[in-house]
């Protein structure tokens, strides 16, 4: 347990660095948000000065940073210029949409990639192995936004098997009472099967797009790790001891091969956080990535800052979880 505590502590300097970098980056953004308002001819120079003052832009940089830190400590991420709402509230409203999509995509990717990698590893050099290699190589070369658009064309325009790829739910359906913000879970809690099905249906295409992208590294790593483990001495011993093939593969080899796979999962999950932005753009998904893009276009500091912080914090959290899970799977890592 103390190791977990130490690992948690070691994330703090990085987190602080993230805050500094985020702050500096958004301060050097071109264009002064006060001037953004000045494009409105009704505003006088005094109004602009007032805006600068309320945003704290008239203070020296280090003071701005201290104010920023103080606000951050109170959970205040500032206010969005474009929507006029507190950034923290905006993100709280949008984060579930992104999280739900990313989690489903991740589950989809893992449940396809691990069996695929296993199949390839059990028969290296076979037709299955070559097919897997081809899929994997194509997968890493596919730009997420292109795959997404092509899938829309094939499954929505041509086949008509998915709903219109805009947003999380058909506009004619009512959202379930908001508990978690995850439409699927909220629909389950409300006992509304129709909404659950509709939400899943709507999520299928964007999730598949994201999963496709994650398939390659996961499959590749599962295959490599399994091949390495199956060739090791303890597997030979197990085989010599007459254990069944199924038992060797599942109980002994898979568990040992899992470690690098879990590490890759962490990497893949953080890839997906980045890819989110593109997928949300393609499918008009009302998540945090789409919001961040809008704020870049509007030179809106606070939401972009908040977005980078949330992303980095998630990223650090994922790495922490991976480390902890690795220690559980493999006792050697813990010592």
């Amino acid at each position, binding site marked *: 347990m103390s190791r977990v505590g130490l690992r948690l502590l070691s994330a703090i300097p990085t987190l602080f660095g993230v805050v500094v970098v985020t702050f500096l980056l958004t301060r050097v953004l071109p264009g002064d948000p006060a001037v953004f308002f000045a494009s409105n001819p009704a505003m006088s120079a005094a109004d602009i000065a007032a805006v600068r003052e309320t945003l704290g832009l008239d203070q020296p940089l280090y003071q701005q940073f201290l104010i920023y830190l103080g606000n951050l400590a109170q959970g205040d991420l500032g206010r969005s210029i474009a929507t006029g709402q507190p950034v923290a509230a905006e993100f709280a409203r949008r984060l579930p949409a992104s999280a739900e999509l990313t989690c489903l995509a991740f589950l989809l990717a893992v449940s396809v990639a691990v069996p695929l990698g296993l199949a390839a590893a059990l028969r290296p050099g076979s037709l299955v192995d070559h097919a897997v290699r081809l899929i994997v190589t194509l997968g890493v*070369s596919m730009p997420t936004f292109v795959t997404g658009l092509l899938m829309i064309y094939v499954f929505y325009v041509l086949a008509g098997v998915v709903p219109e790829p805009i947003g999380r739910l058909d506009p004619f359906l009512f959202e379930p009472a908001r508990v978690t913000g995850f439409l699927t879970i909220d629909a389950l809690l409300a006992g509304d099967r129709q909404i659950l099905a509709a939400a899943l249906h709507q999520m299928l295409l964007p999730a598949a797009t994201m999963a496709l992208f994650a398939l390659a590294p996961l499959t590749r790593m599962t295959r490599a790790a399994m091949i390495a483990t199956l060739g090791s001495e303890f597997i030979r011993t197990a085989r010599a001891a007459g254990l069944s093939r199924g038992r060797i593969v599942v109980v002994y080899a898979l568990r040992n091969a899992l470690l690098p796979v879990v590490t890759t999962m962490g990497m893949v999950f953080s890839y997906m956080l980045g890819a989110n932005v593109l997928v949300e753009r393609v499918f008009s998904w009302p998540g945090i990535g789409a919001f961040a893009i809008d704020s870049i276009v509007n030179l809106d500091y606070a939401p972009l800052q908040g977005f980078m912080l949330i992303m980095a914090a998630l990223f650090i959290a994922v790495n922490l979880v991976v480390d902890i899970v690795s220690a559980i799977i493999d006792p050697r890592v813990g010592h």
Partner: protein
Amino acid sequence: MTHPVHPVRQGGLRRALRGNPLNLFALALFALLCFAAAFGPLLVPHDPLATDAAAALQPPSARHWFGTDQIGRDLFSRVVVATRLDLLIALGAVSLSLVAGSALGAIIGYWGGVLDTVVSRLVDVLMAFPLFVLAMALVAALGNSVINVVYATAIVNLPFYIRLARSEVRPRRALGYVEAARAGGSGDWRILLRHLIPNIAAPLVIQASVNLGWAVLNAAALSFLGLGVRPPTPEWGIMVAEGARFIASGEWWIVTFPGLALMLAVLAFNLLGDALRDLLDPRLRR
């Protein structure tokens, strides 16, 4: 991790090509891309910027091989002409991070000390952001232009080169040939430039070649979001973004052809990167 420079073995290239027919395909693709980048603008049948309202949104035909977009521009010409810009951005970004990252990593690895600590911490912080998110924010911060896409892509990749160069230089500091050079009167910089850098070049070049495909993808994704390259410049990412508005009404060709070009370019770079890695680094051969 102390190993000498790996000489490319006799016939290694030929063997790599024969061993894997995909590599030959990748090489052909790469040649095609280079050809399009070099001579494309001279050879295309139409002006990539010329609009023709009467011929808007036409599907592929004998006159317009890839069809036309919403203002009647010839997509084939645009896709071919875009090759140069897309490849230059990726190449520029990767060479920048290769040179700057290796230099910085080698320096902090050789001298260590406070500089090492500071740079290593900074690298940790940069790596705490998802790559694409950081690239987005950097372009926004530096200013929305093509050269800033190059810088952003380079900066985002810098940590990998710094770490690699640092970890390759460190164990070599006390090796015999470095000691010998020092005894022979070579200064630190001379040892670094003449003896250490050439010895760590192979893994860094491998990293760069594997990185190229990602750089192409990253740049195109940024311009897809409206960052960097501005319309009407022909560029694959922008063309896909423009076509996205028409996909739901069935005009598939505007997205498909630039998307395909992008995919093939990334595929070629990824395959060649893997092939080069196998060729230069026998340790990784499986």
